[in-house]
């Protein structure tokens, strides 16, 4: 259904947003692209939906080439972008009808399809109300219904549940699953919610720095992280934590050691039996373990392993990346300035104050100004492993803020 080979997209700024990406997605599959902010997920979707050009590679969608046959591609796909794009001052029915007209459907067919989709998404009663009166969950459903009006065989969902509460999110998952099961609809979704990828997707690709890091079923991916996951949390800026990490890595039962901010992930065989030894080693190195947890590996561990960052700390892609693309077309200084302004919260807001505090508190770590996530944290010199990690989270933090998903990070940061 989708065949992408060597896709490379370079922004005018020189950033390789997508860098030699290969991807094959089969008909009838739910496929999830998981990746941190700026990994290239949205760019990939934009290329596949014909609204972004690209520099190298070939992209086949539903049997058509996006470059030579964009019109055929457009007829075959449905796209739900992050920005909803539905008109708030039209009713749900009017939005659906307009969408049908844009796909050149005839009036009778449009009406039949609106009834069908209205019933399917349980929007029947609200179809004649203005969209501005809809709840977030209803808008998303209408959004997806709009994308399905012309009966596409393939749907792209870019962060479909971003900003929804848990109940709406789970209800949306059921719809997506049902669409796939009942209509054999192929679904490509991007997400930063691990449960979403885990629950919904048949296969998951972890994407980072414009490249696919790993592809597999959720089970395969979790299996690729060997052993149980032991997570240790140290006091902020503990000087001995780095030394301890290097030492514990030498133990034969530890297969991998990964840093995530102030947390150390150890992957060990038969985790429960090793806890006393781990605690003993910590004491020997003079470090204080504040919390310790033991669990079977989750996709979060897989993500950490392949991107060097926790997905819960990366949140969704904001509109920044999207704007850069448009702005690159000739926005010149205006757009550059705009992007610079947009990079951090406005002065004078509580966010801005926090942001500045962060910058002051955290900039003693290493450079890493490029915004790249380090791949092999554990290979670094032990002494500065801890603080340097926090530089990462410094960069990620503002996006956490928007997602509102992980308050723990704010609480536990060094001041």
């Amino acid at each position, binding site marked *: 259904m989708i065949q992408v080979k060597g896709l490379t997209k370079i922004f005018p700024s020189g950033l390789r947003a997508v860098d030699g990406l290969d991807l094959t997605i089969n008909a009838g599959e739910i496929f999830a692209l998981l990746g941190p902010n700026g990994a290239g997920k949205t760019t990939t979707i934009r290329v596949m939906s014909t609204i972004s050009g690209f520099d190298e590679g070939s992209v086949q969608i539903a049997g058509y080439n996006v470059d030579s046959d964009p*019109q055929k591609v*457009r007829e075959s796909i449905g*796209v739900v972008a992050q920005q909803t794009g539905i008109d708030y001052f039209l009713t749900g029915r009017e939005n659906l009808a307009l969408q049908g*007209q844009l796909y050149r459907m005839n009036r009778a067919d449009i009406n039949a399809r609106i009834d069908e989709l209205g019933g399917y998404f349980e929007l029947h009663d609200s179809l004649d109300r203005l969209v501005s009166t809809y709840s977030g969950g209803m808008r998303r459903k209408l959004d997806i219904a709009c994308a399905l009006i012309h009966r596409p065989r393939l749907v792209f969902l870019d962060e479909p549940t971003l900003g929804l509460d848990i109940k709406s999110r789970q209800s949306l998952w059921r719809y997506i699953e049902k669409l796939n099961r009942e209509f054999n609809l192929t679904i490509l979704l991007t997400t930063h919610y691990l449960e979403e990828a885990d629950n919904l997707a048949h296969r998951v690709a972890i994407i980072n720095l414009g490249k696919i890091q790993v592809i597999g079923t959720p089970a395969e991916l979790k299996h690729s992280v060997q052993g149980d996951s032991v997570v240790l949390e140290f006091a902020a800026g503990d000087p001995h934590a780095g030394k301890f990490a290097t030492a514990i890595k030498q133990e034969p039962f530890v297969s991998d050691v990964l840093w995530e901010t102030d947390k150390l992930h150890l992957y060990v065989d038969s985790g429960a039996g090793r806890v006393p030894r781990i605690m003993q080693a910590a004491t020997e190195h003079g470090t204080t373990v504040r919390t310790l947890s033991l669990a079977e590996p989750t996709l979060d561990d897989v993500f950490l392993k392949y991107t060097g960052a926790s997905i819960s700390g990366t949140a969704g892609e904001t509109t920044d990346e999207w704007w850069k693309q448009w702005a690159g077309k*000739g*926005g010149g200084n*205006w757009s550059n300035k705009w992007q610079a302004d947009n990079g951090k919260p406005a002065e004078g807001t509580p966010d801005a104050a926090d942001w500045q505090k962060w910058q002051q508190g955290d900039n003693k770590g290493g450079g890493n100004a490029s915004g790249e996530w380090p791949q092999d944290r554990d290979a670094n010199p032990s002494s500065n492993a801890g603080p340097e990690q926090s530089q990462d989270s410094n960069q990620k933090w503002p996006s956490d803020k928007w997602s509102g998903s992980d308050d723990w990070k704010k609480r536990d940061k060094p001041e």
Partner: protein
Amino acid sequence: MLADTWHLFGKYMRITLRMPMWTFFTLIQPLIWLVIFGQLFRNMYQASVPAGGHYMDFLVPGIVIMTVLFGSAWSGVSLLRDITSGTVDRMLVSPVSRVAIVLSRVLHSAAQVVVQSVIILLLAVLLGAKISLNPLHLGLMLVIVMLLGIAFASVSNGLAILLQREEPLVAIGNLMTLPLMLFSSALMPVALMPEWIRTVAHFNPIDHAVAAVRSVLIAPMDAGTYAIGFSVVAVFAAVTTGWAISAFNSLRD
């Protein structure tokens, strides 16, 4: 393409009709000018141009064109909103004609200013302006209004795509409209202009639009002036629309 344009045009009209306040809101400024300028310059005009009739009658065509400028020069702002909100992307991923996306916006703006100028005209008559109410004359006037609305909505949409931001777009809109008005016979008869302004005005499509509207609204009708004005405005509209469409097409990154 025409069907696409029609459907999208229908959508914009529907949204406008749901918020008619905006249509009236942009009328406030031309109305203020009509009242204040009509009073302010009346004696000066009648002293300088003894055969020129009432200044109010002279001013109405200028205010009509001003309504067009103020009404259509902001069309690009809503294009930027549509880009930010994802509405434009939603259209771009569909097979809809790309030309239709621009054309429908521009035509919507034109329809809006046609309604606005009719309202302004009615208000002017209520204020005592003596202008031709012959349906043919009014029809010819509305053709100019529509073409000029298309032209300025196109300029605004094209600039929106180039600038990418609302603030400079609004600034340029403001910067553009006032000189265009002043370098034309909208407020002052040509006879009273200094030589160099008269020369500049000659290259100003607004001046020709004002002259064309004046030629049909004030008896006797002057077909020659109208024809020239019509040609200038039609070419202006065609060129700017073409430019806006090509700017929009270059948007694919």
